[in-house]
């Protein structure tokens, strides 16, 4: 299997990482060699195997419905790249 440039561009779009053609070509090369070695998995028949999503053999703990977090707006916004005391700010979105 080969991953072509079009696929690379599509993935970069989904990942929200812009890449130029040169970078795309290099990525295609790298990814193809990585997937060549990943293809090894196809040697295995896994039809009747249950997928494993977590090794933590326990059930989900449930927390009580209590408001514990206070107003920490200043702390939340402090690291924000665009300064504003009330909001996060992003370039204008037009719907």
């Amino acid at each position, binding site marked *: 299997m080969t991953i072509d440039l079009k696929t690379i561009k599509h993935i970069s779009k989904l990942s929200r990482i812009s890449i130029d053609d040169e970078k795309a070509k290099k990525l295609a090369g790298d990814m193809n060699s990585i997937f060549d070695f990943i293809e090894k998995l196809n040697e295995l028949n896994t039809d009747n195997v249950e997928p494993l999503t977590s090794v933590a053999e326990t059930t989900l703990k449930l927390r009580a419905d209590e408001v514990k*977090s206070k107003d920490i707006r200043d702390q939340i916004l402090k690291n924000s790249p665009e300064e504003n005391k009330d909001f996060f700010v992003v370039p204008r979105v037009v*719907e």
Partner: protein
Amino acid sequence: MTKDNSEYLIERYNNIYEVVIGLEVHAQITSNSKLFSSSSTTFGAEPNTQVSLVDAAFPGMLPVINEYCVKQAIKTGIGLKAQINKRSVFDRKNYFYADLPQGYQISQFKFPIVGEGTVILDMPNGPKEVGIERLHLEQDAGKSIHDMDPQNTLVDLNRSGVALMEIVSKPDMRTPDEVSAYVKKLRSIMRYLGTCDGNMQEGSLRADVNISVRIKGSDVLGTRCEIKNVNSIKFMQMAIDYESNRQVDLIQEGKTIDQETRLFDTKKNETRSMRSKEDAHDYRYFPDPDLLPLEVTDEFIEKLKADIPELPDDKKKRFIDKYKVSPYEATILVSDIDTAKYFEEVVAKMGKNLDIKLAVNWITSELFAVLNNKNLEISQSPISSKNLSKLINLIKNGTISGKIAKTIFELMMDGDQDPQKIVEEKGLKQESDPKALEALIDKIINDNREKAIEYKQGKEKLFGFFVGQAMKVSGGKANPQLINEILKKKL
């Protein structure tokens, strides 16, 4: 062709199309704190003051699920007579947006907490069943504000992480009225259960409407479009109307319908495509590795079942059996849990003068008119059930006439006043002393001699004139029944 008015069909030349509608309702769960964080869910707070490090997706922050939200979802499932899944899995739905701080929404994709169920709609031409496909838990997004700053979009994350139930119906609805009835019924069930306040203005209840059209009689589904985030029943109906006609027109022109997400523009009353195709979404769902599968026991579910209150369908049946109200009246009375509660309070307080018909009438006509006018919920009614029952009692025991009652009703609204007190203070007690009334009528007949003679000569229409005079002179307080009797005797 003649149309049954319960049908909603679109005709173009010789083709008759029916509309197939399914709904994805997003209902905000009533809870103190968010689905995966301990910040408050209170509506209308200052921007970004109810945001925890988890809600703002700070590095290394992890979700921990709120038990109450799980219970609320299961209770809703029980209310929808649905399958409760003892094991469900949280997945990540991956996409980038300004008000989605994690870059993914935690939702349930393959294994939802609630499976198939049903909702029964009370349509004018009989009950109609709508299938529920599933109900799953997910996080709400924050809010993007586009109109406060000319250059930028501002983001408020107060809503980010609030628990939502997405309730997906089967494509079982065919008319805008059914859609309206469905949303109202869902809302009613959730309000009975206390799982969602159903407040559409505050956005606690919103819906994505899936619409397709097909030639009537066909059993193949057409290509559907999804109208995103419609936040009122009226808009849903308008969107269905516009969108189904748009689709029919496309088919008639021999064009194809693209399966896509559309937006309903409430100002222009039209739907339009939201996302260009080249930017098609691929949400890359996968199980959230920060969370484990959610497992609940039979015991956990049984405990919740024991907590389920009487739901609208059962209450309706009981009202018909117990109070002998008509199915139509029962439907109205049970549609909202607070209305049903109010009705039963009025009934309970009326005691020996109990008159169900009168109570129903006063609630569904006079009180509803006021609430409608003032845009209030019955829980905010300016007149308490206690005082309304007193008022009805005053009518029943002959203290006041129905007409005076309406006047008193108006006065009661100013601070939920006791009708008995108003009657006393304003002297509105009905005059039922025969002697006093005879004196009053004697005076009227005396003052209108000529008319009395005309009446006696056969101009019976004038009887009404005398009644009117008696009411006018008594300031409306004269007992109308006695006036009639005395007038007949004296004339």
